[in-house]
């Protein structure tokens, strides 16, 4: 049994290097144990755990090739926090050598599992693009570029994967996105990713107050659909959203607001309405201006 020890920060390269060596040495999946450094199983043995050296290639094994679709799938799956992802990907890689159409067999148990992990990673990355909230750093006055910092808590190792999106979008400002699964940053020159876990900073931004005002007023109390909101904006994200603590009161007050609207008798139109309609009449052309 070979033990392969990986960092597992969501980058495909380290897994790919190990998997390629194993494949070229002809080592079948059941002879490999994949472990994550500092992961759930790794902790128990602490520093004493060491990975096996990678085996030399077996000259009898033909050069490995994989379909492009597998690499795309693997790039997403490797970001998942499931410790079994390394083994799953290696099993797929191994089987792909004989079953070229494996990925199209969408009901295959390994393919189903990989697709499930990929979907979960995609969703988390999408939610990260949606729910990161930048706060402006006020110590940046006099600097040529404005500076922003965000704190986010992703479920999977997606900080590196999403960094390019934020760079392409927020190109003219310096930003840092700090998370328990690493930090990405952009300074106008370099896009960086540091896998070390960050700690939550204490930040205030006056613009949050305007955003909260908007959030409260774009809500229509006559259409309360709390389930629909929560399935798209699960509670696990709420603690870092400046608008989320308004939600309980908005929900609690909704019914009373609707009752009040219904109970209030129609009021008399304001004077300018009468002037407008009188003008319409005088012009003899209802409504034209």
């Amino acid at each position, binding site marked *: 049994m070979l033990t392969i020890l990986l960092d597992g920060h969501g980058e495909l390269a380290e897994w790919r290097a190990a998997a390629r060596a194993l494949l070229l040495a002809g080592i079948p999946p059941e002879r490999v144990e994949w472990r994550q450094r500092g992961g759930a199983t790794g902790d128990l043995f602490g520093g004493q755990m060491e990975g096996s050296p990678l085996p030399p290639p077996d000259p009898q094994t033909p050069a490995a090739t994989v379909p492009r679709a597998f690499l795309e799938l693997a790039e997403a799956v490797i970001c998942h926090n499931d410790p079994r992802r390394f083994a799953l990907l290696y099993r797929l890689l191994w089987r792909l050598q004989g079953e070229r159409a494996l990925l199209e067999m969408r009901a295959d148990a390994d393919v189903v599992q990989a697709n499930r992990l990929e979907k979960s990673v995609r969703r988390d990355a999408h939610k990260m693009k*949606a729910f990161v909230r930048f706060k*402006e750093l006020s110590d940046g006055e006099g600097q040529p570029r404005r500076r922003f910092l965000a704190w986010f808590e992703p479920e999977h190792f997606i900080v590196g994967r999403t960094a390019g999106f934020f*760079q392409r979008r*927020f190109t003219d400002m310096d930003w840092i996105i700090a998370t328990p699964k690493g930090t990405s940053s952009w300074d106008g020159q370099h896009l960086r990713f540091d896998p070390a876990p960050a700690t939550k900073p204490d930040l205030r931004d006056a613009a949050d107050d305007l955003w909260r005002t908007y959030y409260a007023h774009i809500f229509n109390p006559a259409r309360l659909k709390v389930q629909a909101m929560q399935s798209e904006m699960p509670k696990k994200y709420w603690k870092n959203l400046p608008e989320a603590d308004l939600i309980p009161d908005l929900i609690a007050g909704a019914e009373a607001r609707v009752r009040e609207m*219904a109970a209030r008798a129609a009021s008399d139109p304001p004077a300018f309405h009468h002037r407008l309609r009188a003008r319409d009449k005088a012009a003899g052309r*209802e409504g*034209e201006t």
Partner: protein
Amino acid sequence: MKKTLKERLAILSDAAKYDASCASSGTERRDSGRSGGLGSTEGSGICHAYAPDGRCISLLKILLTNFCIYDCAYCINRSSSNVERVRFSVEEVVWLTLEFYRRNYIEGLFLSSGIIRSSDHTMEELVRVARILRTDHGFRGYIHLKTIPDASPALIEEAGLYADRLSINIELPTDAGIDNFAPQKHPTRIRAAMGDLRLKIDAAAEPSFRGRRKRFVPGGQSTQMIVGVDGANDATILASSARLYGNYRLRRVYYSAFSPIPDASRALPLIKPPLLREHRLYQADWLYRFYGFAVEEITRTRPDGNLDLEIDPKLAWALANRERFPIDINRAEREMLLRVPGLGPRSVNAILSARAHKALRLEDLGRLGVSLRKVRPFIAALGWTPLRLVDRSDLRDLFAPKPEQLSLF
């Protein structure tokens, strides 16, 4: 005393929330990587928050002003309403958009306005916001502008250069409804404006002799219909949508259940908004656009021309056309697979891909993420025939929700 920016933001978002659209998808892909500026659009839109009404908040959706010389009965901003009237300056809207965008609250701006002074004057102000965002600030995020129906062609032309999407609300499904409830609006002119816009969009899509296409409203045009104001049934509403999709090539028709507004008009009783009806209309709209259903197929299952509220329109169609089932999932063509209740385009693609390699059983479908409870009565698979399940008289009861006591409010 002049209201603060925050107070005006509150009023002008209240004024904008009855427009259902908040979409930021369907436009071109672009980013600021090369320009070094701000903003991007990357295919699918992003909902940056959800309000407790379950609606996506993707854009800063506000009115430039809620002063309005029109008096549309269903509208919070109609001239006869006593809501407080305020306005933003063009610069304030620009500032709010950019500051909200930088904090990743939004994908961009959806700007509309009450009609003030004249159509052209109002449209000019909307265009000015978009022009400043694009040219002075190099903003590459999403911009949706409401188009004022009678605005001059030159202004629409300019709006289309900056905006990802333009929309004109048709408001009500019938001309009679518009005459009754929106007396200053003219259905023929609304349609003429949509037609003009379609021609402009088509013309811009034609490559020039250099092979270049002009960038003009890449996200196309959309509209909104309010449901539950006039007496139109669902068949009328959906037929009206089909014409809008067909004749004016709209990207989206939004349905908005009429919902209580502050200081409502005497002409319209305040009732609980027909949210379920609105939901069924969206489902039917989807069947028309993505599943190959004709509108009449969907609406003729009930004599009153309304969709069944208890079950979704695809299931209703299947129950009314039982002789077409069961469908063999290992042989049927895509078009027919799409008609099976419980199968969407994604699962149909998965089935087509998987069955090329082996014949599928029910368990295989389950692994593809298909709900077996829903599809089982309607399909045949390897080792599975539903016998004459579709002849069962209780089939509807398998799916329809249990009767509930009507809520008093």
